């Protein structure tokens, strides 16, 4: 298990190109021991490339990577558990045979290996299927096997790539619960995904990878603050009433049965509801327009794209370095969260200082 306050992953100014195609450009980040860090990014953003750089499969074009305090990544691999995105395993083996071989590669033998196998097979709930060929396994079972193989060497760091990709809802839930149990045991986890709910469910901190850089970082704890923007569903909305509503604020948009309130305030929301009630409109539902994490993610990606299209990282008065290209919640707490910045921009009210989760 990792020691607290150690930096497990240190990446400085990392760039990676394939020929003329630049995938990562000056990326920097830190992950501390015991932390579950979620890297969020669209498909093709370079998340898997980053994982392969951390494992030493790829060589950086520029910059530095240190994992568990060492830059000799090949040597550190035995202390890292890796769960790949694609569930490609050697299917001509039974689960127990496969895990036994992987355990031997991790330097486990004899009774220590047998005990570890039994323990992990129970953990991932594969007792009944341990002696079945992997070719007969479902995707969900293969993903649970992936978790077991990653834990064989009792790793100090777990690198996980799109853990629920291609799984049905039941399989997704099983894998997420399994990963949550690892988090609760104190494993340091670096999780790459493009699913927001995985970040919300599992992670302590989130970074958004866009256009080869960390466009923004935040504590997930901060992003759990409910969004003030709301969507109201009504049975009907006459044109006159729509006009009346839209004159209340620039942030109100109306469709025939939907009203969206952005830049919302309690007072504005009350006024909108009052108008609807006075007009005798039936209010069918009132719900947050989007989750703060979703807002955080889309804003980070859009801003990064806009900045790149502008041809400069020095845009709209924001700082020029990769980490400062968006407001960032730093682990030390000296920065502001993007959420705060967004709320300030959107509603004109700041939500206070960023708090590092306990």
């Amino acid at each position, binding site marked *: 298990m990792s020691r607290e306050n150690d930096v497990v992953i240190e990446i400085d100014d990392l760039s990676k190109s394939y020929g003329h195609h630049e995938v990562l450009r000056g990326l920097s980040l830190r992950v501390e021991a015991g932390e579950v860090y979620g890297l969020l990014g669209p498909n093709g953003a*370079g998340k*898997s490339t980053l994982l392969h750089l951390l494992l030493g499969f*790829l*060589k950086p074009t520029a910059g530095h990577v240190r994992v568990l305090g060492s830059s000799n990544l090949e040597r550190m*691999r035995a202390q890292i558990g890796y769960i790949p995105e694609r569930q490609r395993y050697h299917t001509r083996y039974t689960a127990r045979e496969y895990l036994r071989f992987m355990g031997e*590669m*991790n*330097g486990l033998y004899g009774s220590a290996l047998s005990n570890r196998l039994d323990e992990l097979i129970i953990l991932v709930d594969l007792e009944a299927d341990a002696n079945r060929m992997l070719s007969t396994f479902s995707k969900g079972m293969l993903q649970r096997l*992936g978790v077991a193989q990653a834990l064989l060497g009792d790793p100090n760091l777990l690198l996980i790539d799109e853990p629920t990709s291609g799984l049905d809802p039941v399989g997704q839930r099983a894998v997420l619960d399994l990963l949550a149990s690892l988090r609760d045991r104190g494993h340091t986890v670096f999780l790459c995904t493009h699913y927001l709910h995985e970040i919300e469910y599992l992670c302590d901190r989130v970074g958004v990878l866009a256009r080869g850089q960390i466009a923004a970082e935040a504590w997930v704890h901060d992003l759990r603050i409910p969004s003030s923007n709301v969507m109201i569903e009504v049975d009907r909305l006459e044109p006159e009433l729509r006009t009346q509503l839209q004159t209340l604020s620039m942030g109100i948009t109306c469709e025939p049965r939907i009203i969206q309130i952005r830049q919302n305030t309690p007072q504005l929301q009350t006024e909108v509801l009052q108008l609807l009630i006075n007009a005798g409109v039936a209010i069918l539902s009132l719900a947050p327009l989007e989750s703060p994490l979703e807002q955080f993610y889309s804003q980070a990606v859009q801003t990064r794209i806009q900045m790149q299209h502008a041809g400069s990282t020095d845009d709209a008065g924001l700082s020029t370095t990769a980490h400062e290209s968006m407001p960032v919640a730093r682990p030390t707490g000296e920065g502001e969260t993007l959420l705060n910045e967004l709320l300030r921009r959107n509603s004109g009210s700041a939500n206070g200082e960023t708090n590092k989760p306990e």
Partner: protein
Amino acid sequence: MRSLRFTGFMLLEYIRSGRVALEIIATLVVFFVFLRRVGISMNAEYFFSVTGVYAPILTLYTTAAFIGLGDRPQGYVLLAHGMSRTSYLLGIFGSAFSIVAGSYGILSVMAALFNRPLDLNIFGWMLGTLPLLLNIALLAALMLMLSPLVFPSAWRLTVLGLIALAFSSNFIGGPIFESLPSLVRAILRAVQAVLGGPLVPAFYGFQLTVTRDYSSMTAVANILAQVSLLIALLGLAIYSFSRRDLMFSDGAP
């Protein structure tokens, strides 16, 4: 040890997948077509001439099959468990070599049981087998080195070009060669001589397999040359594989 264990792992997968049936069938076909008793008994020279050609051909197929097995995203998980790239590459090489050597072994046993060469004893078989196995290993190592897994495209094309140039004396000869300007001829001869050097141990190795003539020191020197060339090819492959970006087929991030 890890490369040996990995070799066993790859071999078991190859056998369980049923792919090994091709090697077994090919070996049986070669025996029944070329080596079974038809009227007269065969001699050792004939036996080694057949196996000396068959084994390298089988090496081409089997090594390609194992390179394919090694060049899959499954390799990422194996390497993530602390296996070094060197062990990984040697495991692939060892697996291919084992299958071809095993096929040759089966062919030898069948010949010994059903149509034993009259002038061949176990010692003679070993003398012929040693350079043959080294040739199998050389070819497997060369194929591994030239695979997309190990060498980038540019290097692959360069090495293949050099090999073609080394062989060119067999294709560019007589009137064509004489029609070239004298300076070009001189340069071409020199290049062919230099590049043809590494091929000598393999060709002489085949001759040694057939003749089993170890009466001169040249034979021993050739065995050493085969071993040296094998180490050089494997060393170059390991060096290249350890330095390049690891991107298995259909598994690029």
